[in-house]
């Protein structure tokens, strides 16, 4: 690899790459995100490589193994350029067909196209798919264009151009002013203005400063940061170099959890390439600025996403938070000024520098600018990563992009912000999605998890799940978080078991408020949010559990009663055969009966009954 020593070097390199890329007639991109890996995209890629080699088309066809394209539910995804054909759910056996039909003859394979679930219309290209139509893929869009382990791909789409601009056209304080003017707020969840943070760090006394990229994403059902770091690691690196230059830091860390092996691998590869290309190390791009990044792998503790715990973990100590009266921007890693930002925040930086703060601030709402990536999961038709401009309504995300509910059930609520966020009921779906409105209704932006729930979800059960999750992930340092969450879990357990009483709810509420007020770090302070928001909007469900001893969504097993309808039962005996506890009695051709004292409430009888005679209450 060549070493880039100046801005003109970079431009020359880019031109060479572009002319080299022009030689390829066809580009086949196989999605290589973790989601698609689970579907076996590696085999699909290998099959393509074999097929292309066999036909001797290696010079004509470029095979790319890209990062996550967001539509993970439909993986593995394969696109063929320049035709722009979008194939979904591609299996190994489809590969020869794609090679012979689509690539050789230009024919579109109907059975691999995306079919709209409502209109049954087939979509040939990405643009025609409703999932992508309402999105604004600024940060995530490049994932599909580049191979994350190839620096040339990134440079080819204009990568590191923003870095050159920052180095040779701007002074550090101008960069900070630009970021401040753009209105970018931290994407990690709290939404602290990034420019302000940088300025504080720059002004903090000290010669040695650090920048950190936080990729310790641990919310259940959220994987934006992972996809970004594994799909486009150079964008994150470029953002970090610009940030370090503006702040005056010479060393950076990417803190990534060990459970993200692909993200670790790709980031590692990107750092090595950037070092070889002279974009990291001494005298970056011939500007006289030294900067290097290393990867610090975390053990996967949820609490290590908290800045002080993360810093403790990088230092090699136990990942526990400390009191934050003195901010990390003045006293962070090894007591030195440290600027910590989320993966997505760093990935936004090159865009802002490249296209200007004015362009960036034209997207979004008054106080929340730009786009935000959400991982849309749960009971919607289309799940995956979506990138939307701030201020879009929840309705649009859930119904237009997500395609509405599965199985015709009604959508009841959406849980945003993971375990620190709250549930937003369907009546508030016209709410614009930005930092302040979400906080206003008792939830939060968080890192961007969005779990859609329908009528079949019990809100008490959801609250219980998150409390138990946090109870396990709490570091145990401070009393309210350690003991308080345990007690909250106990109370919620008793409610779902039908043992709750009048006092349970008021005690739960009081406890939740105290835990939120008094905990040491962000984990404990936001931990009661799922409970408090569920109590705020779905109090009647809690009351049903307590007073009527009934779970409206039929989720809480201890409160369920199985019975067989006498009128519907045809006496086929299928239920009797599958019942593991022999709790069903009845003669053939006659009505059957469930003995409630023996019933283990496994639901097998309901599954096998052909006439839907098994009822749950």
């Amino acid at each position: 690899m060549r070493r880039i020593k100046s801005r003109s070097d970079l431009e020359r390199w880019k031109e060479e790459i572009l002319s080299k890329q022009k030689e390829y007639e066809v580009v086949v991109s196989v999605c290589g995100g973790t989601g698609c890996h689970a579907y076996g995209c590696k085999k699909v890629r290998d099959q393509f490589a074999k097929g292309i080699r066999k036909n001797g088309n290696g010079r004509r066809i470029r095979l790319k193994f890209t990062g996550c394209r967001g539509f993970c539910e439909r993986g593995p995804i394969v696109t063929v350029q320049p035709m722009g054909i979008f194939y979904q759910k591609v299996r190994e056996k489809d590969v020869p067909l794609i090679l012979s039909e689509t690539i050789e003859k230009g024919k579109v394979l109907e059975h691999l196209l995306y079919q709209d679930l409502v209109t049954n219309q087939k979509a040939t290209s990405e643009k025609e798919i409703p999932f992508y139509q309402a999105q604004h893929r600024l940060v995530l869009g490049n994932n599909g264009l580049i191979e994350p382990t190839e620096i040339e791909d990134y440079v080819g789409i204009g990568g590191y151009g923003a870095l050159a601009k920052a180095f040779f056209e701007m002074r550090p304080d101008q960069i900070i002013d630009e970021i401040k003017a753009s209105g970018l707020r931290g994407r990690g969840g709290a939404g602290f203005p990034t420019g302000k943070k940088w300025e504080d760090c720059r002004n903090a006394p000290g010669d040695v400063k650090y920048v950190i990229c936080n990729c310790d994403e641990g919310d259940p059902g959220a994987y934006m940061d992972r996809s970004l770091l594994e799909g486009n690691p150079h964008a994150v690196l470029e953002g970090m170099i610009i940030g370090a230059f503006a702040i005056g830091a010479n060393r950076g860390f990417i803190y990534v959890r060990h459970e993200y092996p692909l993200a670790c691998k790709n980031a590692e590869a990107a750092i090595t390439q950037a070092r070889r290309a002279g974009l990291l190390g001494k005298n970056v791009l011939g500007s006289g600025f030294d900067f290097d990044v290393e990867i610090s792998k975390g053990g996967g503790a949820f609490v290590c996403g908290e800045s002080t715990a993360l810093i403790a973990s990088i230092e090699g100590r136990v990942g526990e938070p400390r009191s934050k009266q003195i901010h990390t921007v003045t006293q962070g890693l090894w007591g030195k000024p440290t600027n910590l930002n989320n993966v997505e925040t760093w990935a936004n930086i090159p865009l802002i520098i490249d296209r200007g703060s004015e362009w960036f601030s034209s997207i979004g709402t008054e106080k929340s600018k730009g786009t935000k990536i959400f991982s849309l999961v749960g009971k919607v038709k289309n799940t995956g990563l979506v990138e939307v401009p701030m201020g879009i309504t929840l309705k649009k995300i859930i119904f237009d992009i997500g395609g509405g509910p599965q199985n015709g059930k009604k959508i009841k609520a959406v849980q945003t912000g993971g375990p620190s966020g709250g549930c937003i009921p369907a009546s508030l779906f016209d709410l614009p999605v930005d930092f302040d409105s979400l906080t206003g209704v008792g939830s939060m932006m968080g890192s961007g998890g969005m779990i859609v729930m329908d009528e079949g979800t019990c809100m008490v059960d959801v609250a219980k799940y998150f409390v138990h999750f946090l109870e396990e992930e709490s570091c145990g340092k401070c009393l309210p978080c350690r003991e308080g969450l345990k007690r909250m879990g106990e109370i919620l357990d008793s409610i779902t078991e039908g043992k709750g009483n009048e006092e349970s709810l008021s005690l739960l509420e009081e406890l939740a408020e105290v835990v939120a007020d008094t905990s040491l770090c962000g984990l404990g302070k936001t931990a009661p949010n799922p409970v408090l928001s569920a109590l705020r909007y779905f109090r009647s469900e809690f009351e049903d559990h307590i007073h009527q001893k009934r779970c409206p969504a039929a989720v809480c097993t201890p409160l369920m009663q199985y019975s067989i309808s006498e009128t519907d039962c045809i006496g086929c005996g299928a239920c009797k055969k599958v019942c593991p506890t022999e709790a069903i009695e009845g003669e053939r051709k006659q009505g059957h009966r469930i003995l409630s004292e023996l019933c283990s409430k496994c639901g097998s009888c309901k599954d096998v009954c052909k006439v839907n005679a098994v009822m749950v209450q």
Partner: protein
Amino acid sequence: MERKTVNVTIDGRSLDVEEGSTILQAARQFGIYIPTLCYMEHLSPYGGCRICLVEIGNNGGGKTFIDTSCTHQVREGMVVQTQSRKIIRARRMLAELLVASAPNVKLAQDIAARMGLTKVRFPMEDNRCILCGLCIRMCYEQMDGRALGFAGRGMGRRVSMPFEVRPETCRLCRGCDYVCPGVIVPCQGVKEPGELCGRCVRFEEMPKCCPTGTFGCFCDQNPL
């Protein structure tokens, strides 16, 4: 060298205190009582028990927030309330959580009594360690032993020696033992083990309940 001072208001009293001291130190200096648990002079503040919470605001009004007084340093123009409604409510709840998890630790009972707790709404457990971390800091900071540390996370957190084996650095100085609130057994009184006591501060029950007649089970100051 003249010492720099800052002006802070604690519970309505305007005080000049040394710069760099914590709210707790400032309050104690002027005789304002803030209950503590995991704090001990000459050991680094830990901020784990949260009992010493205070409400902190600014001179000009505005929003207040809650933080532990043992870790928060004084700042010019700071307005601190140690007994606000919010603080008292939070402390009572913390005391309830504490005594429910370790009813047979004297300090837990003392704090519960101090907060005027008469009922515990959680099922009682019997933990002997309240995870205040005093022994660890004593060993590390004062005895240079480095023989103790926390192991495990969340519910499973416990004080442990490295790999559960006594290291050579431990000189059996018993500094850990000396500071541990868990080794002080509460007065047995008429209380069943594992139940909330505090009868010594409920005057109507006091005369008969205290077996020694000295009410010695309730320690007026921080027993440490």
